[in-house]
């Protein structure tokens, strides 16, 4: 419009100049008419151009309202309908790890019978330094009709190939949401933190005795302007640290989960604005008989508690452990229906008080969990008892580059960029974590009186003879499992940009109450060697490194 006015003004001035400078032309009305017509013609042309631009802008605005939006930014990649009601996002998480053990044992790999692999420890091998892909998770998530979210995440890392998340979320109102499918139950604080956002390369022991993923449904929401969140859920039930399959449950009873978490000073100017605390609990009942009949390979107990270096240091007895306890290489053939498994059989409760605090670049997360689990051994549920394990952690973090710490990820003030001088965000982290198992986990007793064991204790004969009593550790063998583990972890995180993170952790773990045995046998039966001299498992010192991309 300004341009048009300028042209018109120029022409008018021009015609005026001509009129002043040339009296002949000024008096020539025909010439004036021509000039006037020219001005009008130009004016129309400019007006038409303006209007065309205006219409083009209107058309573009209208098309924008109808055209799906293609998104590609640091927040991910996706497509969104023009009205924002429908969206699909492609996300991914890749963690390439390296583990280097200075010292430590690998309980999962057994030496050959009679072999001595590391001095006085002869039933374990050194933990292997290794490279691995810890998490490989392509994710498709999205929204339909504005309030119904979905997420589908398979896991291809750590040697797995399974669905890890597959759920629907219905956000009816901020205070009333429904989630159904396979997901993280609303229980553990550290567990609820995304695998891409955890401050350490591995989670603490607390997460190892809480549910990982389960199948079921939860009602949850935020009230009081988001200052209080609640969740209640019903799930198939899962062992400590367990990741349920997507198959149907073989246990008729379900697990219930509930959580309350408050951020009382949220959005205030207070130094406590970043304080959050709460409590969560689960309750379930496991029918051991049903389990054994239908699925003898599952115990509804953990497959093993692991160290920071992901080496199993505790596991419940199963057939193989019993065999190793009696003698390496022995063949113990059970009679019909004989079960050697320790298994969950009865109530399982967990309680998990939890808190975090973030202030400026400083972050603190503390969590405690106690799990009580009724367990038994053998098909007829011998030696039923309740075992109480507890774990806790306290973790601190500090962003050296001044970014604000939060429960979610870190966004660097300046991304790493050699050309422009940015160094990303740098964070130091430290944590102490413990797992203490119930003393009764290592109770000694006999497995007779039920279906029986066809091992003759006096002769060591296997697979024949009269039913005899076999004395053994009932739930866990101190020669193979430690009673407690204590881990110090220190590390540094380099957030290259919001999507790329490089981490380095050093973790040192000490064990109490077993986990290893001496090389000296105490007695033998024919060709069977029985060892019972348990001693503390060797400390684990491990350096962990991670290169991560998450979008």
């Amino acid at each position, binding site marked *: 419009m300004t341009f048009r006015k300028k042209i018109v003004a120029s022409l008018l001035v021009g015609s005026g100049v001509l009129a002043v400078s040339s009296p002949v032309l000024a008096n020539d009305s025909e010439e004036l008419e021509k000039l006037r017509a020219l001005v009008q013609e130009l004016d129309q042309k400019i*007006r038409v151009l*303006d*209007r*065309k631009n205006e*219409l083009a802008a209107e058309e573009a605005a209208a098309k924008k309202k109808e055209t799906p939006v293609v998104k590609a930014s640091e927040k991910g990649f996706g497509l969104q309908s023009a009205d924002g009601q429908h969206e699909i996002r492609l996300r991914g998480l890749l963690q390439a790890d390296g583990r280097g053990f200075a010292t430590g044992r690998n309980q999962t790999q057994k030496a050959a019978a009679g072999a001595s692999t590391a001095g006085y420890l002869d039933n374990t091998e050194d933990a292997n330094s290794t490279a691995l892909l810890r998490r490989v998770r392509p994710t498709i998530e999205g929204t339909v009709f504005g309030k119904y979210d979905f997420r589908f995440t398979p896991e291809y890392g750590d040697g797995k190939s399974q669905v890890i998340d597959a759920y629907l979320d219905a956000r009816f109102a901020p205070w009333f949401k429904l989630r159904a499918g396979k997901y993280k139950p609303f229980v553990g604080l550290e567990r609820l933190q995304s695998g891409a956002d955890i401050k350490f390369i591995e989670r603490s022991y607390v997460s190892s005795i809480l549910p990982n993923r389960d199948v079921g449904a939860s009602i949850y929401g935020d009230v009081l302007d988001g200052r209080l969140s609640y969740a209640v859920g019903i799930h198939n039930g899962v062992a400590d640290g367990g990741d349920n399959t997507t198959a149907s449950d073989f246990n008729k009873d379900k697990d219930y989960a509930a959580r309350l978490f408050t951020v009382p000073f949220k959005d205030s100017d207070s130094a406590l604005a970043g304080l959050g605390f709460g409590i969560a609990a689960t309750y379930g009942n496991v029918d051991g008989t049903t389990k054994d009949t239908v699925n003898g390979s599952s115990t509804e107990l953990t497959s093993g508690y692991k160290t920071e270096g992901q080496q199993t240091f505790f596991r419940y007895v199963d057939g193989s452990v019993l065999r190793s306890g009696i003698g390496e290489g022995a063949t113990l053939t059970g009679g019909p229906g004989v079960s050697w498994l320790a298994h969950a059989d009865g109530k399982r409760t967990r309680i998990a008080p939890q808190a975090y605090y973030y202030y400026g670049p400083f972050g603190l997360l503390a969590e405690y969990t106690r799990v009580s689990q009724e367990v038994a051994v053998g098909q007829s549920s011998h030696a039923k008892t309740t075992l109480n394990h507890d774990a806790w952690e306290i973790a601190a973090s500090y962003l050296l580059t001044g970014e604000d710490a939060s429960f979610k990820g870190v966004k660097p003030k300046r991304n790493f960029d050699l050309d422009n001088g940015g160094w990303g965000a740098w964070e130091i982290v430290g944590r102490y974590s413990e797992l203490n198992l119930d003393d009764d986990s290592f109770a000694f007793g006999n497995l007779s009186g039920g279906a029986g064991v066809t091992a003759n204790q006096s002769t060591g004969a296997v697979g024949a003879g009269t039913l005899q009593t076999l004395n053994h550790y009932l739930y866990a063998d101190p020669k193979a499992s430690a009673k407690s583990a204590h881990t110090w972890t220190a590390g540094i995180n380099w957030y290259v940009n919001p999507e790329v993170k490089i981490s380095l952790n050093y973790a040192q773990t000490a064990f109490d109450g077993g986990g290893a045995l001496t090389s000296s046998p105490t007695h033998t039966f024919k060709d069977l060697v029985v060892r019972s001299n348990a001693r503390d498992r060797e400390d684990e010192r491990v350096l962990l490194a991670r290169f991560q991309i998450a979008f």
Partner: protein
Amino acid sequence: MKKYYSILGILVVVLALTNPLRLQAAEVSLLNVSYDPTRELYQDFNAAFAKYWKAKTGDSVSVKASHGGSGKQARAVIDGLDADVVTLALAYDVDALYDKAKLIPQNWQKRLPSNSAPYTSTIVFLVRKGNPKHIKDWDDVAKPGVAVITPNPKTSGGARWNYLAAWGYALKKNGNDENKAKDFVAKLYKNVPVLDSGARGATTTFVERGIGDVLLAWENEAFLALKEDPGKFEIVVPSLSILAEPPVAVVDKVVDKHKTRAVAEAYLNYLYSEEGQEIAAKNFYRPRLESVAKKYEKQFPKVSLITIDEVFGGWQKAQKTHFADGGVFDQIYAK
């Protein structure tokens, strides 16, 4: 369990009998999807109907209106815009609701009197005060050097009426020679410097932006321009124009979903009432009701009118020949 169901049953019955909502008047909402220049008409009519409906039933009705190029509006309804009623510029656009989405029955036009067109209009010329280009008839509009403002017939119902009126004039003048008619219309569209998507946009181009020498306009739109900007424009009535019958229809699938059929049907029927016809006439639409037509006789100039059926064989044929992709309009209007 039986006890539980008994208690539940009693609760349902009690709630049904005591439901306070049953005692209150209903509040109903309608969406009227209309074409571009009907804003003022339906603003007045909606208020009158709400008053009428409240007096008749005690219910409050709120009618929202959506306006745009008739073709675009029809497509929006087909694509999911929840229109309880449509009041579009031409029957072809309403037909599309059946053809493309089966939102209405095929015989929709027979459900209301006068082919479901409660008012009519025609096409006239709006020129600037003094008629500086001396435009008297269609021949003047097609002369070189005359800038003609008319919207895009691909998107605007009014534009299609404009186009067909010009075509009808040329046919008549040239003894039904289609080629000469085509040449004539091609010349006319050479004079069009800018194509708006709707009739109201074209009025804006001519009236507010000051572009062009003549606006091919709905009669009601031309009168409205005179009323709003007195002394700036004049209406020129051509020797021949076209009878425009903007139809109305209830969108069956939507009213059944919204449970608004009764009020939607009453809404359209009210257009045929004396009050509805008065409102149409006051907004410069030609009323169907004889008594009202007589009352406003002097308001509307007499003009010789052709119809879409007699000259073009109906809307389906006209659309296919002239406005479909690759049709005559695409051939003559080179961008």
